[in-house]
């Protein structure tokens, strides 16, 4: 852990509200994004992100500093999103993974309407395919391909070994190819 991060953690432990503000401002977009991707469509990512921050604040005394603060926050956010996802799976009255729903409004494409339509369809297809990718492959692939995390950080965030991360990413890529071909013939 870097010295500036150590100082930040010390301020968090001391209950310094400006430190909490710094953490939320620094990580809110990343946590919101990863939660929406792990929990899937239909999740209230803002509520879950808020919940994740509150859990992190409440548990800051137990943060041992062996990992970076953001990796620790990721772990809490991912667990929060997974809990929500698992809870929803146990309650089938809630609509299933709405893969048609975009995570956000797609960015306008300047290359013409036809190209934009194809790009939109591809984006929708990859969302549907990703939504069908079973856990734990989905979260692992999201962290690697969408969040750009290093294998070591993924291992920390998911509390698994590097070898497990390597295996999951490989298998996730192979599975996603099959699913994407089904979605996008």
């Amino acid at each position, binding site marked *: 852990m870097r010295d500036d991060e150590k100082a930040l953690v010390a301020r968090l432990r001391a*209950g310094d509200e400006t430190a909490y503000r710094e953490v939320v401002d620094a990580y809110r977009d990343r946590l*919101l994004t990863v939660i929406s991707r792990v929990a899937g469509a239909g999740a209230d*990512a803002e509520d879950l992100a*808020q919940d994740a921050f509150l859990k992190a604040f409440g548990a800051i005394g137990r943060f041992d500093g062996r990992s970076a603060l953001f990796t620790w926050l990721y772990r809490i956010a991912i667990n929060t999103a997974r809990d929500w996802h698992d809870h929803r799976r146990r309650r089938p009255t809630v609509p299933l993974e709405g893969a048609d729903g975009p995570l956000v409004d797609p960015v306008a494409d300047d290359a013409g309407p036809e190209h934009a339509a194809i790009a939109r369809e591809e984006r929708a297809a*990859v969302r549907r395919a990703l939504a069908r990718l079973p856990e734990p492959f989905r979260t692992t692939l999201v962290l690697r391909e969408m969040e750009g995390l290093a294998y070591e950080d993924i291992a920390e965030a998911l509390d698994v070994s590097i070898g497990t991360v*390597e295996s999951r*990413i490989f298998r996730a890529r192979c599975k996603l190819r099959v699913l994407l071909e089904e979605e996008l013939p």
Partner: protein
Amino acid sequence: MNAAGHDGPSDAERAEALALLSLLRDGRSVDAQSAARARALAASDPEVAAMLAAWERQAALLAGEPGLHAPADFTERVLAAARPDGRGELLTLPVARRLALAAALLLAVTLGWSLARPGTLRADPDLQRHRHAVDHFRATPFAHDDILRGLRGRVHDPEANLPHVVVPTGSQR
């Protein structure tokens, strides 16, 4: 010819090569000989090449997914939720401060309860033994003096069935 007697690599050989290529794609270290074998297979085998092309395509699609942006008031909402009543201190008090707060609350409640009991009761050791009964009667419509008189009489009455009270005898008085 592969181990199964067919031309080209076996499925197991392809799978092994692809597992290595997945690592190489992410810049992971693989021993040079294995890496060279996997790359050679990728260059010569259409199935492996197609898989790599598919990985590139899906990675580009995934990476192109835009992220979310929290609304402007998100930070304030989180900080407000961290405060129990929206005004007080954050929920995340350090452990030492939480313990100190809990100890202070406990002390205040104990002292308050003790001081709320009339001094005449606290001063009498026999009545002190029956403080729970006193506390019970204080919640009744009986007057304060009636309770005191009744309890004093009962404590000093040798006929009273109070086995744990040492009733002073005449010679002890």
